[in-house]
């Protein structure tokens, strides 16, 4: 009897339900956990994503199952995933990002907005290539938005246009964001001359507190009137920024940029990872999406750099075109890459503050691009 019970226990265990797909996904999640811990590649997001992937591929857990049966109770991750599905988490993350972001460099040099717009070029290129590869316009839009280098925006748009592609798109977006220090520098060196990279930029003017307070209000009104579909993203981004700049809501600003964003990041990462179930994830489309994501990232960098070069030429060499590549959102990593490349060419060059302008402009640019795609195909 004891042996029979053991055999039954074994037969009911997850080991008997393991498939080759779940084993492969467990290996992939192991690699991602290694990259997050050992290589520190976006660990705050990669770690929960990888662990969510691991949990979702352990059989018979029902963590993502919908409420069913007499109890009507669903899996834990099913309920947490509702925040992704309904677009709540990306907007809350934008609230935190807004509270963390200083738009001062953008206000001091508003022409940075052009570089933020140019760095959305990859979205357009990836969209066209995706259509050529047989994806539907909604799927192509979600794949293209990877080029915006903005995780929450990519997740927000994908849940609305192509929810079945959420896992590969989110994983591609965050992986490439982590790989920005490897992807961007060769393109930056290829498209700029040594002389351009050595350009030292003039000190920026100081920005008053009143300007910083007015900015989130003006941006919200203008962008939301033009593109109502961006209201959840731009609205939350600017509310977070208003908390920060108003100087009278320090507790709210502190909560948004620390506790709230950390809690939401855990839920978002875990549940996005949990959508990567082996049978769904291990398809040829995933490889195509990962390749298209890289194309989108590269062309966005090219777009930002080209606008940077045009502005360098138009201002007779007053703008270092290296700051253009920071237009691909990914705050502040892309700006840091501009700083590092600038210092390699000229050790006395400090581009970080100048690159923060296009960097935060890129956040607005990618949200605007998402709003347009949502209006067209939503």
């Amino acid at each position, binding site marked *: 009897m004891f042996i029979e019970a053991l055999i039954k226990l074994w037969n009911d265990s997850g080991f008997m339900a393991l498939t080759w797909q779940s084993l492969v996904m467990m290996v992939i999640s192991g690699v991602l956990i290694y990259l997050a811990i050992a290589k520190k590649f976006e660990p705050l997001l990669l770690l929960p994503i990888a662990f969510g992937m691991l949990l979702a591929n352990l059989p018979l857990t029902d963590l993502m199952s919908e409420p069913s049966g007499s109890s009507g109770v669903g899996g834990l991750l099913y309920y947490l995933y509702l925040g992704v599905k309904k677009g709540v988490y990306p907007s809350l993350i934008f609230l935190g990002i807004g509270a963390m972001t200083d738009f001062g460099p*953008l*206000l001091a040099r*508003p*022409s940075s*907005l*052009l570089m*933020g*717009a140019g760095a*959305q*070029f990859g*979205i*357009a*290129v990836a*969209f*066209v290539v995706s*259509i*050529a590869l047989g994806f*539907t*316009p909604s799927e*192509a839009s979600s794949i*293209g938005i990877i080029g915006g280098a903005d995780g929450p925006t990519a997740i927000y748009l994908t849940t609305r246009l192509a929810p079945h592609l959420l896992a590969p798109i989110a994983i591609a977006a965050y992986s490439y964001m982590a790989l920005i220090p490897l992807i961007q520098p060769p393109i930056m060196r290829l498209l700029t001359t040594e002389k351009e990279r050595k350009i030292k930029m003039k000190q920026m003017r100081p*920005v*008053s507190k*009143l*300007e910083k307070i*007015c*900015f989130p209000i*003006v*941006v919200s009104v*203008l*962008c939301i009137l*033009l*593109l109502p579909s961006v209201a959840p993203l731009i609205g939350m981004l600017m509310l977070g920024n208003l908390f920060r700049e108003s100087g009278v809501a320090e507790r709210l600003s502190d909560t948004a940029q620390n506790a709230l964003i950390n809690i939401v990041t855990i839920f978002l990462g875990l549940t996005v990872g949990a959508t990567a179930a082996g049978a769904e994830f291990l398809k040829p489309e995933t490889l195509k999406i990962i390749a298209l994501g890289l194309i989108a990232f590269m062309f966005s960098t090219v777009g930002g750099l080209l606008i940077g070069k045009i502005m360098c030429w138009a201002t007779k060499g007053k703008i270092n075109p290296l700051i253009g590549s920071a237009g691909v959102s990914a705050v502040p990593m892309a700006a840091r890459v501009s700083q590092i490349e600038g210092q390699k060419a000229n050790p006395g060059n400090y581009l970080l503050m100048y690159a923060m302008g296009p960097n935060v*402009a890129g956040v*607005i*640019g990618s949200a*605007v*691009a998402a709003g*347009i*795609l949502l209006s*067209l195909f939503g």
Partner: protein
Amino acid sequence: MSLFQSISTALFCISVVFLVLVLLWIIVRLFSVLIRRLEKQDRAATAKHPKS
């Protein structure tokens, strides 16, 4: 969607992004100038009639 349609959609999308951000540039510039002028006037007024 044909290739031509996809290219025209992509061009439309990037053009609208540029349009919105250029509009934003103009508005930011305008309100910056306005605010700086107001602050300058305020400072001048305070210098003329300092609070006792």
